């Protein structure tokens, strides 16, 4: 902690010269985001080890822009997950996050750095290992499967350039190997991952088009003794989105596909049966989402409805999951700049002729301090 305090003092002293900007009537823009929500799996899929499950989370974050070219973000989350088959909930009461983004070359090159640091996580008993592995390794119906957040650090870079009329964003991020000790007696070291993403946006006939491609590569997952235990296969994703303005408001549609090769087998296994098939056990996915944003009413309420159809297929056993997720969102703009959003979500799925379903709701409040009065010029007159 002493080291952290010293480094924090160094950073603050480095910031202080430009931090004095505020003395001349400028104020630093910042935005705070609070999200509270949960999802209840009312009926688990037939192959799930338990009957149901739930997940709820509290997210808090602040983003600040002390200079025009630098953004800082800090946040903490509380998350609790009872996956199907768990004997007790898994909790992350204080998951800290921080990031910094820098515009290195104006409007052209950006770099960022982020870290996640879960503190005081609960542990997972060996008796839940099968459900744990099933939740993470197999099909999951909970919307946020990220119940595991090992301490991790990420750095990345982005190049943005225009090929009139298209806009190209090409970026790469690298996440360092981490360490995970919350599984009782089964400590291991998750691998590094390298993610490359290319996104092209272009207008066409009054609408906006976007195509994205993402490739993810993984290193070796290591045992506690740093033996190579397992390696995830490369993962490719493609997505095409279109949005436009119709007579009734904004519409949007997305179609995507996700494919993953066969993993390399592990050397050490959990207390569960080893894979019995030599085929690819990774889920392959295809989804289509359509959304409609309706115009504001006199009370500044926006309304959005989105529906996603998703098919997942696992080659090793041929199992197919079909899911339909219907989302409703109400969005208010509060005092012109702040935002309030309510998000309802309903899931209906089917596999091998048997249904499963769940529902969730979340609320997001976004408080914005713009730093300047957008409606009458700078917030304070100049000296």
């Amino acid at each position: 902690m002493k080291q952290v305090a010293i480094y924090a003092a160094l950073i603050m002293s480095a910031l202080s010269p430009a931090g004095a900007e505020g003395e001349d009537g400028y104020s630093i823009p910042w935005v705070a985001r609070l999200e509270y929500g949960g999802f209840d799996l009312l009926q688990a899929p037939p192959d799930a080890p338990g009957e149901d499950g739930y997940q709820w989370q509290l997210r808090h974050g602040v983003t600040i822009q002390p200079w025009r070219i630098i953004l800082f973000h800090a946040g903490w989350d509380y998350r609790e997950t009872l996956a199907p088959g768990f004997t007790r909930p898994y909790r992350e009461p204080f998951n800290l996050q921080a990031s910094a983004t820098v515009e290195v070359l104006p409007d052209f090159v950006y770099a960022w750095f982020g870290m996640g640091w879960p503190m005081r996580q609960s542990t997972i008993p060996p008796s839940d290992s099968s459900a744990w592995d099933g939740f993470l390794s197999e099909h999951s119906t909970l919307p946020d499967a990220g119940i595991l957040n090992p301490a991790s650090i990420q750095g990345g870079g982005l190049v943005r350039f225009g090929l009139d009329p298209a806009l190209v964003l090409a970026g790469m991020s690298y996440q360092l190997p981490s360490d995970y000790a919350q599984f009782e007696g089964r400590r291991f070291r998750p691998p590094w991952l390298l993610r490359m993403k290319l996104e092209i946006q272009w207008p066409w006939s009054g609408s906006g088009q976007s195509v994205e491609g993402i490739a993810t590569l993984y290193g070796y997952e290591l045992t506690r003794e740093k033996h190579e235990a397992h390696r995830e296969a490369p993962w490719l994703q493609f997505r095409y989105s279109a949005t436009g303005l119709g007579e009734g408001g904004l519409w949007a549609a997305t179609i995507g596909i996700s494919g993953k090769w066969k993993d390399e087998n592990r050397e050490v296994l959990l207390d569960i049966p080893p894979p019995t098939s030599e085929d690819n056990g990774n889920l392959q996915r295809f989804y289509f989402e359509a959304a409609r944003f309706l115009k504001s009413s006199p009370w500044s309420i926006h309304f959005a409805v989105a529906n996603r159809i998703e098919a997942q297929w696992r080659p090793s056993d041929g199992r197919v999951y079909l899911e339909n997720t219907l989302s409703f969102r109400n969005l208010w703009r509060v005092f012109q700049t702040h935002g309030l959003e309510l998000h309802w979500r309903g899931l209906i799925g089917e596999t091998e002729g048997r249904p499963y379903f769940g529902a969730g709701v979340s609320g997001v409040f976004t408080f914005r301090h713009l730093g300047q009065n957008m409606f009458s010029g700078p917030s304070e007159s100049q000296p």
Partner: protein
Amino acid sequence: MSQNSPDGDRSPFLFSSYRVLIACFLFLISTGIRITSAKIPTAVWHVEFPGQDTLFREGLAQALSQALAEDTTLKVYDARRLGGGLLDSLFDQNPEPARSKLASSLPPKMELAIRVDCRTAEANIACGVEGRYLLQDIPSVRDTGIYLADAVVKPHLLGACMVRRWREARDGVKRTGLMPGPLVLKTPAMPGRLLRDVEILREGEIKAFPPGTTLETGDMPYPVVASGSRLEYVLYPNGIYTYPLAEVMQLEKGSLGVWQLRDTSSLISKLQRVALPDTSTKSTKMADGKESAVGALGPGLQDSSVLLTPACAIRGRPEALRVSHMRGETRLELVQGGISVLPLLSSQPAVLLPELNVGKTHGYELEIEKLGEAKAEAVSRDLAKWVGPKGGLSLSQLLPGILFSSQNTLPALRPEVQDFIGGELSNLGMRPAKLGLDDWNAAGSLPPLTPGKNEAGCYLCRPNHVGP
């Protein structure tokens, strides 16, 4: 902040990650500080404006300062108060004495001086804005624009326009992204004048109507049709039309096509004489002198044509219709024919307005009332005897308000960049909010679609196999 494993040994990851964390953080911060070197002390040093008194020049200097202050790379000072008589000599042939005196005597070291020099150019004003860097060997940035003579009554807007032009010249950045394209005029508007706030972009023959501009149609012999992606708009002679910016769509929570039809003045005679022989329209000046537009559209109007008021879009084949727009409300008195009305700010679909009815809307719900026979006769008589007095409003009174000024946006990192990086950081469980206003229904950025659960790349967040 330490993580101890159940079996007691201390994680080597923590120690190494601390070092990486600090190194990366310091690198980013030092990079940012080196690049920005904080804000550039800036001042408006000199304003020259023929035919205007000192008070006006001081007001314009203040407006320029306000506009410059919206550039977060600049720190703007009232240098005339600080520098006194030294300032005007700064732009002399030999500015070094003044420069050194200023650099040593002023509490803040000024680095950027702005000089404005205006002159009359025919019926308009030509203003040059020069930014001179005092302490660094950087070439001056100079830009000259043509502005409306009426702009002197709006020095704040004039200053904002000058600064916007100068910043564009300085940055040399071309606007990209998903901006709506310009509307194409099937027949060029001639004569016409294309404006951006008080700045004159083009005069004479106008073929395209870009977003963010105002088109002033002159005494054309006939109306022209502007084609968009879905609708066609009829632009009448002697009218003033504003194609809002994408930013306005965000700010106004409205949608594409919130046009302003403010002054139809003498279009009526042209319509009857040349283009739409069955059309009768007229403009009147209301008793209170406020803006108004009154017109009647006849069967010559094609089905694909749309009449736009600030509150609604009107389509159909009216035979006797009076349209007026006052205090933000559009009033449609339909005596004969049928029209459909689409309030521009409402989510409801277009509403059919039967004849002998009155429709009223502020852009939201359309209120429909019966039009009494006596009133209908009065409207018919009014249409039959129309005369076309001028509206009596000067152009400066019709200029778009401050919400239509593009510089009134938060100078944050670009939304698409924030989206991109936020998506990558979601691998760490982050959900950073974007700086800037919500773009819930803006055309300029993609909506926040959920791309699917497996979008995150962290395999621990959504793996297929995990754990030893």
